[in-house]
């Protein structure tokens, strides 16, 4: 019998048992849910993004599955960073024995405020802090301006880096920019240790019988299958601009999808919408399929497929 291929990866300083990382905002709203996903075999788990203060998010409907993907406008529901610290500390205690790193995620309305949220979240000592500069569901004050522009993205990165006390950070980029590679370069130059790519793509689904957008927020963020080629292209472009590890995220539903993302240059693979398409145990299934793929193609280690299609 052949040996199982080695699927452990190094994400900068972090060691992951496998490359599959729970994406932010999906089931990451409580220690119990993070614990559950870790038990299902995740290499690492990301908590829901938290901001300076509590947000209840948008009114319902907040999510719809259309034919080729999901569309959501949850609206960054979160308890505020002070309560998030407690949540993360509880989660850490649950994850430590499982040897599953915990990734926190933060957002804010200005570079300065990003720094403040970072300094508070650092108290929980997460293994990595994702900096969400790219959520399309919150307008003007949050999100878009930072991910859209290389300079403001870098300013946020520096502000977080200064206050995070040595915890590595991953800036999370948006797909609706003309030059994601250049933006990646700019945040890496400003100190980002890892890049997460991508967040959802802005979209709208109108129900023609109702003659209304389905989401209360009208537009939302597109994720799932339709996003995959967009994400793969972004990852491939970023991988040509920077040398830091990339968490490739967007539309990964199967082990072959994960392999595609890694061949495009991702070191780890974010998994979000798959938890709807394949259930809360999606990561377990994807992990087994990735191993099957590697075995069938004679790869001894997942590192062999890294950047293979570039």
């Amino acid at each position, binding site marked *: 019998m052949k040996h199982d291929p080695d699927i452990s990866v190094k994400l900068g300083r972090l060691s992951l048992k496998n490359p599959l990382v729970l994406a932010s905002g999906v089931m990451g709203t409580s220690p119990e849910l*993070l614990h559950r996903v870790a038990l299902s075999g995740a290499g690492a788990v990301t908590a829901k993004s938290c901001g300076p203060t509590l947000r209840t998010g948008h009114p319902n409907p907040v999510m719809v599955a259309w034919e080729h993907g999901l569309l959501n406008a949850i609206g960054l529901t979160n308890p505020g960073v002070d309560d998030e610290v407690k949540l993360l500390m509880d989660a850490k205690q649950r994850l430590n024995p499982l040897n599953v790193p915990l990734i926190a995620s933060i957002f804010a309305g200005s570079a300065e405020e990003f720094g403040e949220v970072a300094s508070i979240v650092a108290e929980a000592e997460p293994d990595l802090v994702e900096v969400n500069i790219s959520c399309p569901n919150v307008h003007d004050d949050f999100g878009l301006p930072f991910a859209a522009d290389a300079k403001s993205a870098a300013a946020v990165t520096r502000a977080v880096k200064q206050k995070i006390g040595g915890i590595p950070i991953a800036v999370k980029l948006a797909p609706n920019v003309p030059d994601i590679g250049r933006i990646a370069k700019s945040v890496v130059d400003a100190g980002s240790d890892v890049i997460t790519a991508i967040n959802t793509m802005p979209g709208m689904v109108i129900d023609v019988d109702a003659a209304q957008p389905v989401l209360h927020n009208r537009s939302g963020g597109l994720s799932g299958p339709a996003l995959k080629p967009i994400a793969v292209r972004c990852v491939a472009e970023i991988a040509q601009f920077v040398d830091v590890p990339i968490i490739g995220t967007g539309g990964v539903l199967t082990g072959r999808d994960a392999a595609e993302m890694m061949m495009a240059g991702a070191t780890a693979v974010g998994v979000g919408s798959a938890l709807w398409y394949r259930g809360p145990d999606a990561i377990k299934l994807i992990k087994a399929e990735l191993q099957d793929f590697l075995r069938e193609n004679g790869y001894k280690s997942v590192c062999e497929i890294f950047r293979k299609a570039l």
Partner: protein
Amino acid sequence: MGGKFEARKVTAISKINPVTSWIRFDGDIYAQPGQFVMVWLPKIGEKPFSIAELNPLGLLVVDVGPFSHALQALQVGDSLWVKGPLGQGFSITGERLLLVGGGYGSAPLLALAKKARAQNITVDVCLGARSEAGLLLSDAFLELGCQVSYATEDGSLGWHGLVTDIVEQKIQAIAYDLLCACGPTGLLSALSNICKTHRLDNQLSWEAHMRCGMGLCGSCLVSQNIDELLPVGWLACYDGPVFYQKFRD
């Protein structure tokens, strides 16, 4: 399991008490009793509702706030939008069922009773409410040939006290195979304890604040703090709303 909204037309709407309506829609829904739908009224909002009738789709709506109020204001021929069926429903096992309902909890239990009675299973029902007016659908259960007992906190009908009291009495008197319940969290916690004591298999339909209804947003987590028998990270919209607890095999 559908994640898309589909338009449905109202074919009948009738008040069954001053604050409660029964709404019937065109077309069936292929679902287990206990599954639910997300109902969307454009420009108004979206809320979860238990499937109270399968063929055709029927919902029981208690007017407690803006959304349920808007639902009751619908007219025959109006459209609303339905996403689902969602979640896991009840699954009938054994020969003798005890159903326990609080408030609109009667809704999924009615669909369940109908299915069980079609299989000639004996179905006893205990309904509880503050007062007689809150005891919903008791006629419908009687019509199906269920034995129905009542408990009201003000004693206006049946047992003067909590529905859990009459449940205890019935469990001691009759060897049920399964208890199925839907109602407020407090009721379910009490029932969970009673069943643990009596080692009675049970399926409890838990309430939770639902947002996505699709197992992603985490809003509907029912924590182990509420019932330690639940597995870690249990989502009412995806894993539930019905949780199965087996003591016998």
